[in-house]
Each structure stands twice: as structure tokens, then as C-alpha cells.
């Protein structure tokens, strides 16, 4: 099903100097958590990364290595302790309006129906209600939640809540989309289906996507580049170009080239000693 991108495209009027090639710039980023009661934790150390406009980047790394932390800093939710982060030439110190995010936990509002939850970003940014209601409906249908629009979050299964969270991040068609394990609670089949749909939406809309995932094949299938993080504190172990032609379909994953990428990333994990 085709989800029409709304005509509006976030007013990302970048300063003339910003090249489309360095749409997101992360420069020597450090992050240390300093809880009041306990010892500090170094979560990210010296992260350097530049993302092109319209690029699809995946971030993989062992649990607890700082992936969520990285996304939260990009989203302007969490202060960094060192380095610089810029999106479209602007320093990220607070959330930017052109950024959408799928959270690791669904985080729906229990007092809103699923439909109204999905409409939250459109409501916040006061976007044309009629058009976005239509889009929300289409997105919900895409993820198989038709019939559940008027239910409340606690009446949905874990995976269904996560799908609603994905719809919410897509409804206002953000220029930059940050996704934190959006498909973690989905069965393998639904997940593959959602991968395909996401690719389609991305191709139609020219979004810049940063996806955190635990599935290496998923990362390879979707991305232009895969960023591999080392265990905590997260450092960039490798940034791998995925040289598979687009548009891709799931069949490509059985190709040798894809297998090589998957194996190479896997080896990083093993090298880092993540698994026995």
C-alpha cells in the first residue's frame, strides 16, 4: 500500500554552508552518565560520524554499549559531555522539530486511543489535521492495526504497541528519523514485512534514517552504511559501506555479498569477545 508522503517536508532550511553530505555531524562525541547516588558510567567515547542527507544508517553493537544513548543525544534529549553534534548545521542542544523517533519501549499515552497516540506529533506541530488523520489511518493499516484505532494501549500486545510507536514516528514525515530497535518485539515474519515497508517509505520520502537494531541481517538489508560499536564504552569499531543495489528485496539477503557483510559484522562481535 502506498503511503503518500505529506507535501510538507520539515522546514529544514539548512544554512547555505551545510553540505548535504554532512547532514548529521558527530564530532568527538563523549557521554558519561553521572548519577547522583552511584558511580559514573562512560557510555560513549570519541564517536565521529557524518551522515549524508537521505542516507540510511544502522547502528549495531552489544547490549549496553550506548546505542540508545547515541540516539538520545541526536534527538536532543540527553546532554553530551564532550564533542559536538550538529543536524543540518545546527548544534543539537534541544530536540529539533524535523526529527522523529521510535523509542526502545513503545511509550504510548495510556489516556489516548491508539489513533490519537499516532496523531501526537501532528497535533504537537499543528499540522493539517485532515491530511494527517488520513496518513495515520494508512500507517495503522500498513502495520496491521486496523480495527484497533479506538482501543487503548493496554489493550494491545507488546508487538502491537511497538507498531503503533512506529506509526507515530512516521506520521509527520520527519526529515530525520531515529529508530531504537523498532522491530524488537515483532515476530520474524512481521519484522521482514515491516523492513520492506520501511525501505519503501524511506525511498519515497528522502528521509535520513538512523536505525539501532540487534539484527545484523536487518542492518545489512536496510542500510547504506552500518556502524558497529564496541562494547561499553561505545566506540566506533567500524563503519561499513553496504554496497547492494537499490531497490532491494528480501531475496538479496540470500546473496553471497550480503552474507559476507553479515559475517564481517558478526566477526566484530566475536572479536570484541561478546559471545562464547
Amino acid at each position: 500500500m502506498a503511503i503518500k508522503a505529506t507535501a510538507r517536508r520539515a522546514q529544514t532550511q539548512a544554512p547555505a554552508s551545510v553540505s548535504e553530505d554532512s547532514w548529521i555531524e558527530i564530532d568527538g562525541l563523549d557521554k558519561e552518565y553521572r548519577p547522583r547516588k552511584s558511580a559514573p558510567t562512560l557510555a560513549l567515547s570519541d564517536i565521529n560520524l557524518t551522515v549524508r542527507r537521505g542516507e540510511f544508517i544502522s547502528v549495531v553493537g552489544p547490549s549496553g554499549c550506548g546505542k540508545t544513548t547515541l540516539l538520545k543525544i541526536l534527538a536532543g534529549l540527553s546532554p553530551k559531555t564532550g564533542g559536538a553534534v550538529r543536524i543540518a548545521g545546527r548544534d543539537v542542544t534541544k530536540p529539533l522539530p524535523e526529527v522523529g523517533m521510535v523509542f526502545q519501549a513503545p511509550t504510548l499515552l495510556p489516556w489516548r486511543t491508539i489513533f490519537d497516540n499516532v496523531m501526537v506529533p501532528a497535533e504537537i506541530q499543528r499540522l493539517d489535521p485532515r491530511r494527517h488523520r488520513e496518513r495515520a489511518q494508512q500507517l495503522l493499516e500498513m502495520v496491521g492495526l486496523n480495527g484497533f484505532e479506538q482501543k487503548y494501549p493496554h489493550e494491545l500486545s507488546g508487538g502491537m504497541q511497538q507498531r503503533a510507536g512506529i506509526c507515530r514516528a512516521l506520521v509527520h514525515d520527519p526529515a530525520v528519523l531515529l529508530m531504537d530497535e523498532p522491530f524488537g518485539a515483532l515476530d520474524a515474519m512481521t519484522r521482514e514485512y515491516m523492513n520492506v515497508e520501511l525501505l519503501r517509505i524511506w525511498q519515497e520520502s528522502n528521509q535520513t534514517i538512523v536505525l539501532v537494531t540487534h539484527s545484523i541481517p536487518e542492518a545489512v538489508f536496510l542500510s547504506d552504511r552500518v556502524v558497529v560499536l564496541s562494547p561499553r564504552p561505545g566506540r566506533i569499531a567500524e563503519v561499513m559501506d553496504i554496497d547492494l543495489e537499490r531497490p532491494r528485496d528480501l531475496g538479496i539477503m540470500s546473496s553471497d555479498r550480503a552474507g559476507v557483510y553479515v559475517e564481517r559484522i558478526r566477526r566484530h562481535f566475536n572479536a570484541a569477545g561478546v559471545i562464547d
Partner: protein
Amino acid sequence: MATSNLVRKPAQPPAPSARPARRKFDLREKPQLWLVPTVFVVVVLAWEYGVQLLGVDEYVLPLPSSVVESLWQQLGDDQFWGHFWVTTQEALLGFVIGVGAALVLGTFISQIKIVEATLMPYIVAFQTVPKVALAPLFVVWFGFGLTSKVVMAAVISFFPMLVNVIEGLRAADADKIQMLTVFGASKAQIFRMVRLPSALPFIFAGLDIGIVFAILGAVVGEFIGAKEGLGYLLLQTNYNFDIAGMFAVLVVLSLMGLVAHFVIRLLQKRLAFWAEDTKVIGA
């Protein structure tokens, strides 16, 4: 891979089927239907015979029967209804003002930390002052009429509401606020979409305390200087040594409080419905 699309259109359309099932009526499931009246009868009987057995004198605690008789007489009296409406009006107005002010101020205080540090001490300090002692000031500033009683009711219902509003607005889930923040929500939007709904249980606790105290405040305000109202009627019956009449007025006040309480609880069920549905069946 096949090109069916059953995630979109699940194989079983009747997913959410039919309409909510009617629950059948069962007295065992709603024991309050007989327990509440039973307890009422027991309380009244205990009062009636306890007064006699404990040797409490009727002029200190009158028998329920005399109170009911006196109540009956009062209810037939137009003047009584005049008093009743005056107090109702004072209490409601005071409640709305007090609770409204607490909402506004509580919002400020909870959002802007510095406002709390500078204002809260004065609010607490003012609250600890017995308002009766300020009666002269109240009268000087607000006159002998309705206003001074409304102010009294407002002032006393203000504080419990304020504390609960502040605490409630703070109780909002950090994750939900983060979520809204990412989507560019302003403080006002975060307030409306997350903080306020999260605070509802606190707010309703505040309203519940507030309405009861507003009635109390109006009555105390009438003690200080009034020509009408149930508080005045209390003084009058007491002055006339009509203790049964005084208790009849107290009963009316209690009923006012009860009705207000139930209205607020009903509103809560309506407005904070999601809290109901998430209750665990097992626990």
C-alpha cells in the same frame, strides 16, 4: 516470499467483535448494596442506644430520633433553604476559586523551580495561620457579606489542592515527557498531554479534600460574622440551646459533603478512566 498481506488485514476480521458484554446483576458481587444500608442502620441504632447506654446526655449528643424530627421541621422551613443556598453558594464559589488558584499556582510552581523556592514558604506560612485569627482583616478587606466567607472557603481548600497539584504534576513519567519533547512539544503541550493526565489522581485527591474543606471554610466564615447560612444557623440553634436542631444542621452539612464527594469521584471515574481499566484482576 508470498505477497499476501495479512498483517494488514488479519485473517479473522472479527478481531474486536460485537459489543461490550452485559454483566449480569448479582447481589453477591455487589455486597455494598446490602452492606451500606446495614451499616447505616447499625450506626444509627448504635447512636440511639449508645447515647442512652453510655449516659451521654441528650443536650450534648441528641438522639437520632430527635435530630430527624428537628431535621424534618427544618426542611419544611423556607428560611432553612435560604441558609442552605447561601452556604452552598459560598462553598462552591470558594471551592472553585481556591481550587482554580491552586491549579494555576501549582502549575507555575511545579514548572518553574524558582517560583517554588520563593513562593512556597509564604504559602505554607500563611496556611499555618488560623484563619479565624485573621477574621478582622478578612472583614476589613472583604466586608461582611458573601465575599469574606467565599475567601475563607477558597483559602482553606486552596492548600490541599496546591500540594497535590504540585506533587501530581511532578509525578509524570519521564519517558512520556521525553517522547513528547522529541516531537517538539512546548512546555504547554507537555503539560496538557502528559503532566495533567498523569496528575489526575493527585488532582482528584486534592479536589476531594478541597470540597470538604470548602464547606468547612464557608461555615467557619459564617461563624465569624454572618447573617445567614448554615454556619449562622449552627450558632443560632446553639445559642438557643436547640442541640437537636444544631445536629440537624450538621447532618445537612454532612450530606452536602457526601454529595460533593460522590460527584467528584464520579467525575474521576469519567476522566481518569484508563487508571480503572489497567487494574490487575489477580491482585
